[in-house]
């Protein structure tokens, strides 16, 4: 992720000074990533769009008060995360809880070692089918684990920034990340191991 804190500061200053185009530049810059993050959290594109609109509106209204204590991107993602969580707490409260399954499965996912993932060529892992599998693996995580993985590994925020966005300690973020990554790894290993059984019969 390109560090562009100074560029953002200028856009914010110009927006507050009344330059709406500067705000639209910020929207253009962040809409994709914010939408992706919200969509990963709520697993529903219609709802994600509503939350996306709400998030940028909140940001516009709050920009006068945004004193620049944190980076604009962290502040924006925090608004997005909180809006998504508020929606989930009402609509699907069970997804927001820390799920014990991920704790119980963790030992086996830590231990799993099979070569299929490492031996599968990157083009296959990133094919349309492969991308679908990555998305499914991430979507299967409980929200508290999913959000830190998406913020760190998909959106590229630092551990400190992720901690600010989700309002947790860096230690908690590291712990959730460790479990989330191993759980995703485990799902992908299962998928590619199963596929290996059929791969040998397929003509190249």
């Amino acid at each position, binding site marked *: 992720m390109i560090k562009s804190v100074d560029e953002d500061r200028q856009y914010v200053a110009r927006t507050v000074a009344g330059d709406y185009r500067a705000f639209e530049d910020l929207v253009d810059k962040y*809409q994709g990533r914010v939408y992706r993050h919200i969509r990963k959290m709520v697993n529903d594109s219609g709802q994600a769009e509503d939350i996306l609109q709400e998030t940028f509106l909140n940001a516009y209204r709050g920009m006068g008060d945004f004193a620049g204590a944190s980076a604009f991107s962290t502040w924006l993602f925090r608004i997005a995360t909180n809006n998504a969580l508020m929606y989930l707490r009402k609509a699907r409260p069970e997804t927001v809880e820390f799920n014990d399954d991920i704790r119980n499965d963790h030992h086996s996912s830590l231990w799993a070692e*099979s070569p299929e993932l490492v031996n599968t060529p990157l083009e296959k892992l990133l094919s349309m089918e492969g991308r679908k599998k990555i998305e499914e693996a991430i979507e299967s995580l409980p929200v508290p684990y999913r959000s830190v993985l998406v913020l760190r590994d*998909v959106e590229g925020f630092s551990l400190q920034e992720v901690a600010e966005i989700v309002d947790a300690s860096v230690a908690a973020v590291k712990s959730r990340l460790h479990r989330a990554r191993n759980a995703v790894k485990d799902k992908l290993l299962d998928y590619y191991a199963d596929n290996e059984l059929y791969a040998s019969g397929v003509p190249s």
Partner: protein
Amino acid sequence: MKDTKCEYFCRMFSDYLDGEIERAECELLEEHIKICPPCALRYESLKVTVNLCCKGLNAEAPREVRERLKSFLREHCCKEKV
């Protein structure tokens, strides 16, 4: 005893990928991976997983979503001053 050592290092892989491990521990971890093929595989699998998460997800909102966002904001924001 070997399993305990492997478990000890496996628990560090995620932090290691984030550059969060002290140098001395890094060296021990790297040494262990060199001599323990199952752990090397576990580490590489985790590394591939993180790499896929970085590369595997689409970064753009669909065009219609972008356009609706812009219209929505123009409608709501232009009435207000920040």
